[in-house]
């Protein structure tokens, strides 16, 4: 029961925060609400026995990506821009489509039959520790994606440099 209550809190809070995120006029507010959301997500991860991911979520998302966002907002100095119309004229359509799609998705998801259960039970992971289990998988089985991810990060660096360089 207790987990369900916790989940209930988390989910309601997350949904609420998400709505706040997408409706705030000031992007800085959105980002701060985003931070709140990330905390909740991290909490959820903990529920799901993904401690390492929870940490990564905090460090990478909250610590790096959001800061990047904030940094850019500050850099662009957007005070004046805040005043203009927030939403697209056709927002009701978007909301309707979103709502309807949600209904459809939820209808579909009720039929979800989960796949076969694997070997990494909670016990197995705890025995090995989460980080080790993850790391082992990452550096052996998922070595190749890992390498590609490194290329992606390289691209991000190069691309950001190319694009954001001062004009010559």
């Amino acid at each position, binding site marked *: 029961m207790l987990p369900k209550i916790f989940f209930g809190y988390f989910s309601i809070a997350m949904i609420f925060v998400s709505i706040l995120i997408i409706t705030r006029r000031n992007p800085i507010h959105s980002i701060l609400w985003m931070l709140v959301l990330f905390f909740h997500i991290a909490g959820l991860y903990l529920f799901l026995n993904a401690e390492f991911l929870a940490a990564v979520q905090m460090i990478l998302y909250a610590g790096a990506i959001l800061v990047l966002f904030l940094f850019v907002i500050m850099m662009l100095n957007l005070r004046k821009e805040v005043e203009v119309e927030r939403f697209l004229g056709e927002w009701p359509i978007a909301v309707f489509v979103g709502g309807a799609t949600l209904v459809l998705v939820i209808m579909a998801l009720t039929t979800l039959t989960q796949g*076969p259960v*694997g070997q990494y039970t909670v016990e197995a992971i705890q025995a090995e520790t989460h980080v080790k289990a993850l790391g082992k998988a990452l550096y052996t089985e998922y070595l190749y994606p890992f390498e590609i991810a490194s290329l992606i990060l390289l691209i991000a660096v190069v691309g950001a440099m190319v694009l954001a360089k001062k004009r010559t």
Partner: protein
Amino acid sequence: MNMPFPNLAPVTPEIILSIAAMLLLLMELVFKNKGVLALAGLIAVAVTLYVLPSSFGTTFGGMFISDSYSMYFKLIFMINLALTILLSLKYLQREKAECGEYYSLLLFATTGMMIMASARDFIVLYLGLELMALSTYVLAGIKRNDIKSNEAALKYFLLGAFSSALLLYGISLLYGLTTTTDLYKIAAQLQQSEVSTTLLLSMILIAVAFSFKIAAAPFHMWAPDVYEGAPTSITAFMSVGPKAAGFAVIGRVFYVAFQNVQADWTPILIGIAILTMAVGNILAIAQTNIKRMLAYSSIAHAGYMLVGIIAGTAEGQQAMMTYMLIYAFMNMGAFAVVIMLEKGDEIKDYEGLAKTRPVIAALMLVFMFSLTGIPPTAGFVGKFNIFMAAINAGYVWLVVVAVIFSAISAYYYLRVVMNMYMREPAETAAINPSPSLGLALVISVVMVFVIGIIPSVVIG
């Protein structure tokens, strides 16, 4: 803890290319002359092509597969890359957008495509896709002083990110259904269970994400704007590369992973294909900018290629691949002509070109007729191939729709020809010839004719 060191032979092409990309980044610091970088890029292409045939095999625990299917696409990517490099050299100088990272990014993007074509696992597929996508976002915006280029990059990026979110959501559902991300294991798993709505949902999401990449309607709307705004060489690159990569993964995912829901994805793809052909062809008629027109034309071509996929047979898949190859040549050729002209973005810039620049006009004529699908050009062989496969699979009515749209397409391709040949020139069109561009044109036109006259080089 003892993992055998993975067999690297199948991934050598990717490794070579990514290493070359990184080397280019370093070389950029050394060489002032960007031509060297281009040359290095071409050498990388050559080396990759050289090792490509010997790279058969599966590796990384079955995540990566190098088979004839992927190899064919890699060949297309190499052609695309090589031609793009040839197109870019002079163009970048002219547009003052020269930077060393450009070639490096091209190579990275191509690496991403190759990874996509070889992916046997959704994780690899996703990462390859992102590698390609992120590089192309940057490339689209590489003329950073040009507002149109910025806009193109922005639009491409926003919608691309949106579509990859959809893809991820779809993959996550599929993962939930099958506990795996391996395409073949998914297929095996799906074989055992009944078709659930969730599965269809995830299939649709994945289909939509891929449709975005190949610019199929109604997920195509980014394409015209991005094609118009991006540097022309990149437009050429994008009109072939990511599209081919998209088709590569569609072919793989839908033929392997979603094999047993074929009955469900076929109507979806049919709908998308018809809409794509309709939107592409009809909107192309209304264009005045040749890059936009070619964008819509490339949308329409995606529709024809989808017909090959819809056929659902190995023959259809091959037809789609062949078409892609042919499309690469003719489309690249057309863009090469656009680049060749100092002022060649608007269709009316082509008025009277036949008088002032007969050779260039003749080349453009060949490419336009090839895009229309008139023999003896390669475009005809491609279309014929697709139609054969579809008819053999029983989709005669779909082919009827396709040929009617293909007849409509003649209208706008002919308009370019008409402008070149049947109108009087306002002034002598300034051109920007360079050996590399000439080489690209020659390769394209020769291939268009060779494939058109001796289709055996690509058939069977």
